[in-house]
């Protein structure tokens, strides 16, 4: 594990202390967990905005695509598939 020192705003330190008490974990553990949650949140947002593909999301979160699908379903994050895309999809069966 590497070591990094950083300056935090008073407000962020207060939040860290508040969460440490709530979760009964030391500051360092809490800070690490918050970084992890922050990373996950940001990647999910990138996915939702269409900046990251499903496979890309799975890679960034170190999980399989199946696990990523389960996570997205659990969080109820809408798939970035538009209604027009949906209507277009019927064409392949019309051509059959």
């Amino acid at each position, binding site marked *: 594990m590497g070591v990094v020192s950083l300056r935090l705003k008073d407000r962020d330190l207060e939040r860290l202390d508040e969460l440490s008490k709530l979760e009964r974990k030391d500051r360092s553990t809490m800070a690490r967990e918050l970084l992890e949650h922050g990373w996950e949140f940001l990647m999910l947002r990138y996915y939702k905005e269409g900046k990251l593909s499903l496979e890309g999301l799975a890679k960034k979160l170190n999980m399989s695509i199946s696990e990523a*699908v389960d996570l997205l379903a659990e969080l109820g994050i809408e798939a970035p598939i538009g209604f027009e895309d949906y209507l277009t999809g019927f064409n392949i069966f019309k051509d059959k």
Partner: protein
Amino acid sequence: MEIVFDASTLILLAKIELLREITEEVKAIIPRKVKAECLSKKSIDAILISTLIKEKKIEVKKAGNAKAVNKIQRDFRIEAGEAEALWLARRLNCPIAVDDGPTIKACKVIGQRFATAIHFLLNLASQDRLELSMAIAKLAKLSHYGRYSREIIKDATERLKGGD
């Protein structure tokens, strides 16, 4: 009909336990990278996909032309499995089954025909291969895992009930 499947649609259809029926309707093809991704960790859907590959209901093909696959990846900011599936579908001149936003965007740009998991469910129901009550139950499950918009689910429900 031959269709190349991306991992997204393959996994969704496996999760709603409809993949076997679909592979009896269409000739399902996947590139090697998609196979590797789907089987990377043990899960029920991975076991089903692996079984269907062994039964030759899903054919695994080499995508070929690594340069072209890399270019697709770079141009459309998608990953290797998605790019291989897209390239293979182009090469075989057949549609791609994909439930991934950026890959669908890429399909629209290059004029690649595509469908998502919900289309396979509706197609199966329209051919009376699924009873209405079962189709509605599968749609509910697919709505959970596929996370389609309300507008899409509403339309799909109407199509099922209307028999279109």
